[in-house]
């Protein structure tokens, strides 16, 4: 396509919207304060709110249901135990995610001590520009039933190597900021950005076979 005379003027940089990890549900500080004061039902409310997300996070890191369940339990127990140390500088959920990530990484390293470490430098030597680019259309996910889509998404992300999978999980699924992700994983911000770019491109490539227009179901 050649440059057209009717090219729209480039938009000014849009204002950055706050990440969900920075948006605190109104009652969260109240629940945390109540839990700190010994109100067990307040802590149970927080557990109920985040249990499935923490389980998914743990499962995506460990790739094992039993380990994920252990990690989830350990994360909530540790959170309760150390609640007094939660200063409220970040969202409670972000703090909880960091605890769960630590537990999950410990589990992963114990189970697979020889596998690539999350903080190891990775030189993939890959060409970043995708070769085959297909149009997906506006809502490719609507072609699949919810359970089918979940299977596709889980299958595709589990194929990613841990350093990419975990960064994508924290940054794009849990919606932590780049800095929060770097801190949680003990990585530099440029390392997070580099892994995230590769993770996003790899996932895009893997999803292509399910979402390209020519694969109409």
């Amino acid at each position, binding site marked *: 396509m050649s440059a057209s005379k009717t*090219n729209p003027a480039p938009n000014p940089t849009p204002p950055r919207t706050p990440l969900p990890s920075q948006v605190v549900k109104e009652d969260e500080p109240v629940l945390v304060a109540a839990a700190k004061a010994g109100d*067990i039902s307040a802590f149970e409310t927080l557990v109920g709110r985040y249990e499935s997300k923490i389980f998914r996070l743990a499962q995506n890191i460990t790739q094992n249901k039993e380990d994920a369940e252990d990690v989830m339990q350990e994360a909530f127990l540790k959170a309760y135990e150390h609640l007094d140390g939660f200063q409220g500088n970040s969202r409670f959920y972000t703090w909880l995610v960091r605890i769960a990530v630590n537990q999950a990484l410990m589990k992963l390293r114990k189970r697979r001590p020889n596998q690539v470490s999350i903080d190891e430098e990775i030189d993939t030597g890959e060409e970043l520009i995708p070769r085959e*680019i297909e149009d997906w259309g506006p809502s490719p996910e609507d072609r699949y039933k919810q359970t089918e889509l*979940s299977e596709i998404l889980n299958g595709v992300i589990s194929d990613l190597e841990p350093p990419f999978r975990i960064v994508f999980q924290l940054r*794009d699924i849990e919606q932590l900021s780049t800095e929060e992700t770097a801190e949680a994983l003990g990585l530099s911000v440029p390392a997070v950005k580099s892994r*995230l770019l590769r993770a*996003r491109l790899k996932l895009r490539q893997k*999803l*292509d076979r399910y979402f390209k227009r020519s694969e109409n179901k």
Partner: protein
Amino acid sequence: MNCKTIVVELENYLDQDLDADLRASIELHLVKCKKCKLIVDTTKKTIEIYCNADPAPLSQDTRNRLHDALVKHLRRARA
């Protein structure tokens, strides 16, 4: 601006972490290059689909085990 720069800056572009000039150059390139536009759109969609996917609810058994572990821990902490 070329296709390689678009991919290198893709992460910053999608996260709105670029200065206005570079962003404007990228957007101008995207109007002209169908391939890059598709890379940007499908990568954006990839993030969106994962971001919007709700986690599966825990099974009742898993939830019960979590609850039991918490109760056990609390009893021990109080003793």
